[in-house]
């Protein structure tokens, strides 16, 4: 009986606190290792320095040049003009830069999980779905992370924009310096895109349009989330179908806004890191990555709640549907991934294929590139392909955990090569910050989940969910 409301017990809080603290400890351990010269994971940095030093415009020039990849957006120089090797030396990227980049990766990743909570909730109403009624409160709770995510995202951008986004450097936009001499840092390609970031102000000042979009998107998402949450709570108290209709209208409004904003958010927050590069698939690609990770999280939370004695109404039929969602959208992600890859690979236009040259043909990232595909496609595909696997807790848990982690790897691969380049690494720092973010995220989500009944009390489709059978 007490199992109708999720009990956010001291035991769970303690576990989250331990995860948070061990995340911080790992972060610090990563810092110690990188600063004391214990380069167990950062051997790349040595490589980087050696390469840069050996690069005395001598014979090693070409080798170093290719190693650093021609289009090294993260570094200051647009290395298309060979001879700007000093730029690389002045940007020695260490532990702090890694933390900043990881901060951004986690921000985008967890924002996505929260958004997908709201998106999933909204499509259930827009599609008049009944089967999902028992689990609706889980995605709704996930969406409560949108507010902290928005604050973190804005702060991270305001403080560290130069470390993440090449286009925030003001010296790219003027062809001539103030004294009339030629500005060697001028980048006509980025200058052409300036108004997308800076309008209505001058290029190189404060990115009003960019920050404005971020604020407006988060504002709209938070507003609609609060509306849906309060309607859902009112329905619990008062009953009747009128709240369902109101939620349906709000959901449709959210879906319309989300369709546009998720795409633009993907260009803004991730694609603009590789500012010379573009892909028309990118909005879909980021959305697909978010969606499958969010679905996996919803499924994982459902299964875990069920195993702990909650949600006894949820049967293997409901799990089967969730499993099908996860299975289908891991294939959908692969489809989008491949569509983007094939077009770029096939046309082989340098300014497009550089994206995959940096990731697939690069010693540092090619492993991550294939690990990404294995974790997010081959593994869940083979694990979840049978009917039974989608109905059994253990298979769902394994597949969902791999997908949730796998899409972090996906975002890592989207962000890191364009920012840290050859100094990027994966080690204690990354794991630590993921734990910090993950535990904070789960704290907010579980706290929200404990604030209302686990199953909506007066939802008009409870009976349909009860009789759901596939």
């Amino acid at each position: 009986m007490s199992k109708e409301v999720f009990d956010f017990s001291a035991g769970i809080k303690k576990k989250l606190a331990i995860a948070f603290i061990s995340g911080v400890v790992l972060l610090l351990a990563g810092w110690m290792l990188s600063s004391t010269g214990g380069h167990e994971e950062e051997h790349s940095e040595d490589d980087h320095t050696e390469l840069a030093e050996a690069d005395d415009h001598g014979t090693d020039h070409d080798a170093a040049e290719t190693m650093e990849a021609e289009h090294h957006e993260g570094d200051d120089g647009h290395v298309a003009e060979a001879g700007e090797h000093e730029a690389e030396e002045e940007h020695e990227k260490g532990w702090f830069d890694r933390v900043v980049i990881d901060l951004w990766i986690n921000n985008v990743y967890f924002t996505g999980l929260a958004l997908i909570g709201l998106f999933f909730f909204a499509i259930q109403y827009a599609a008049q779905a009944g089967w999902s009624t028992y689990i609706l409160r889980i995605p709704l709770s996930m969406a409560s992370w949108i507010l902290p995510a928005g604050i973190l995202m804005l702060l991270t951008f305001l403080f560290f924009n130069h470390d993440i986004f090449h286009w925030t450097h003001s010296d790219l936009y003027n062809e001539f310096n103030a004294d009339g001499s030629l500005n060697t840092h001028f980048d006509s390609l980025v200058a052409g895109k300036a108004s997308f970031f800076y309008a209505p102000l001058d290029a190189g000042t404060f990115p009003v349009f960019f920050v404005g979009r971020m604020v407006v998107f988060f504002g709209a998402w938070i507003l609609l989330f609060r509306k849906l949450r309060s309607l859902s709570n009112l329905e619990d108290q008062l009953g009747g179908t009128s709240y369902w209709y109101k939620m349906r209208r709000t959901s449709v409004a959210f879906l319309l806004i989300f369709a546009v904003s998720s795409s633009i958010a993907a260009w803004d927050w991730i694609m603009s890191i590789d500012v010379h590069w573009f892909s028309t698939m990118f909005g879909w690609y980021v959305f697909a990555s978010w969606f499958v990770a969010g679905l996996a999280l919803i499924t994982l939370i459902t299964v875990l709640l069920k195993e702990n004695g909650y949600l006894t109404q949820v049967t293997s039929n409901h799990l089967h549907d969730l499993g099908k969602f996860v299975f289908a959208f891991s294939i959908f992600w692969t489809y989008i991934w491949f569509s983007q890859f094939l077009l770029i690979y096939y046309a082989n236009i340098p300014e497009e294929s550089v994206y995959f040259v940096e990731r697939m043909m690069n010693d540092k990232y090619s492993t991550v590139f294939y690990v990404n595909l294995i974790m997010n496609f081959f593994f869940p595909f083979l694990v979840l392909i049978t009917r039974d696997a989608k109905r059994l807790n253990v298979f769902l848990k394994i597949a969902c955990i791999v997908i949730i982690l796998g899409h972090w790897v996906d975002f890592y691969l989207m962000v890191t090569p364009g920012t840290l380049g050859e100094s990027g690494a994966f080690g204690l720092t990354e794991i630590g910050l993921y734990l910090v973010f993950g535990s904070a995220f789960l704290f907010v989500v579980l706290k929200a989940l404990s604030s209302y009944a686990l199953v909506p009390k007066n939802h008009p489709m409870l009976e349909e969910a009860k009789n759901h059978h596939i």
Partner: protein
Amino acid sequence: MSDSKNFILGVYDDEDVLLHAVSKIRGAGIKIDEVYSPFPVHGLDDELGYKKSKLPIAAFLFGMLGTTLALTMQIWMLGIDWPMIIGGKNFVAIPDFIPVTFELTVLLAAFGMVGTFLVSSDLKPWKDPKLLDIRITDDKHIMAIDLAKNKAVDAAQIGSALKDSGAVEVNDKKVEE
């Protein structure tokens, strides 16, 4: 050789009554030969205790066959038999082959599954279907009980069990094979 089968048919006009009837009849130890229904009834196969279909396995194997065929075909054609440089790629450029491989996988999985289904359920255009009751194509559900398989239970007893479970009619039917 007598090639005839004797059935007792329970006629039901509501799928909910039918679902409960199936478990009642099976609970009384009577073996149900088959239930005919004009539309799919959720949960009926569970109630009848049917084993899980093996069709997905066939689909998977046909799909794998499609993958193998497609890759073999393309590698042989473009890599061995008549190598061609396309877009400066290798002769055997796997990413180029993926769309065709995907399509053939889907095609063979789908065709293979449909074919397997037709063969395993003995469906063919020239088949002369023996309908136990024409109304199963309209609005009635029929539960067929083969007397030969229920020798332990008296026919009259089966009839009354069907009536008790909510059948609107109970009929006898003899089918010549």
